[in-house]
């Protein structure tokens, strides 16, 4: 009886020890210099991705305004200072639509999805950082 208890306890102890060693091993493996990279972005639906793209582009457009006191005439002007690349709508693979308006330098802008019907919506755009879906 006592022997059985001893075996059970040592089994638990070994299992716990293995778990700790395994955890430390995992932390060690994840700490390699090749892992000096940011955490990967969470996987999201194409619609969430498209809206996130619109928001990122809008922030870059606003930052462009801070530097130039007017909005850019085209999204390509944001590269490479504010964004890496403009990107495309995930479902249609078409570029996002951008319009800038105003006299004496663009004073307002709108970025829209090129094919909103693919997301079962009539219209989706961002203006002044606010996303509108219809």
């Amino acid at each position, binding site marked *: 009886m006592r022997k059985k208890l001893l075996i059970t306890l040592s089994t638990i102890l070994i299992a716990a020890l293995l778990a700790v060693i395994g955890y430390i091993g995992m932390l*060690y493996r994840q*700490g390699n210099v090749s892992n000096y990279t940011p955490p990967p972005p969470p996987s999201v639906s194409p619609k969430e991705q498209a809206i996130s793209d619109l928001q990122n582009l809008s922030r870059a457009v606003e930052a462009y305004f*801070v530097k130039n006191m007017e909005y850019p005439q085209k999204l390509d002007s944001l590269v490479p200072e504010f964004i890496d690349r403009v990107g495309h709508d995930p479902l249609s693979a078409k570029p996002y639509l951008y319009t800038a308006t105003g006299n004496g330098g663009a004073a307002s802008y709108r970025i829209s999805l090129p094919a909103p019907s693919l997301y079962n919506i009539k219209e989706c755009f961002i203006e002044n950082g606010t996303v509108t879906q219809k």
Partner: protein
Amino acid sequence: MAQLPKNSGITHLMLNIAILVLSVLALSPQDSFSREPLENELAKALAKTVRCEKIEVKIKGDGKNRANPDKLLIKLVSMPNQCIPADIATLQYSNPKIDMMALRKAKNFKINSVADFKIGMLFSQQTIRNEFDKAARRLNVQYNKLSIRFTPPYIEVEFDINARSIPSRDRKIVEKFIKNGRLAGYAAIRLQVQGNRVIASPDKVILNHFRMPMPLVSELKKRMNPVWHIPRIPVFDYTLEKVDVLKQYVYVSN
């Protein structure tokens, strides 16, 4: 001699017209006849209180009422460290009512009312790096290596710190990771801004080849924050609430 009264009448009429024109010009609310552009007056008034390399002012509107334009844009370039180390700050007033009395009499910048106000600031990698250096000097932390890279939405930092120079209170959390008196590694940090205070949220920390467990990272986050308090630019009233890491800048706005 007979034409003299007629000439005298014309002279009198022209004199009256000239007086009328001069009176209208003198009473004009824009004072456009005698004064320099309003943009320059505003820039000069701002230069009295805001210290930066360059102040650019743009007024947008139909030009009928310059004291109450559609938009007033102010760009402040290269602000010195005494104030705020932003590379560029741009302020946007929508339908502002500029206090012309304060501007003309006391040469002061004052906005009596505004429909909407936006402020955005850009901080370059070099500026952020300088802020890290300043914070390290202030805390007396010595390091052999410190590199900063912007990878939206993260700021990536690689470091090699002399562990002995870390204050003992903070060293306790990382004690187990110290190797040969050094703390070398990597951190991927997200930024948040709450009421002009910058909060750093490390999502991944690697110390001497070990990834730091998340409970310890959370504890570290609690101790290190707020990492920075962005001073307010004199004259302007605002609270910074948003921050974004872009390719070459950190963009902070209200």
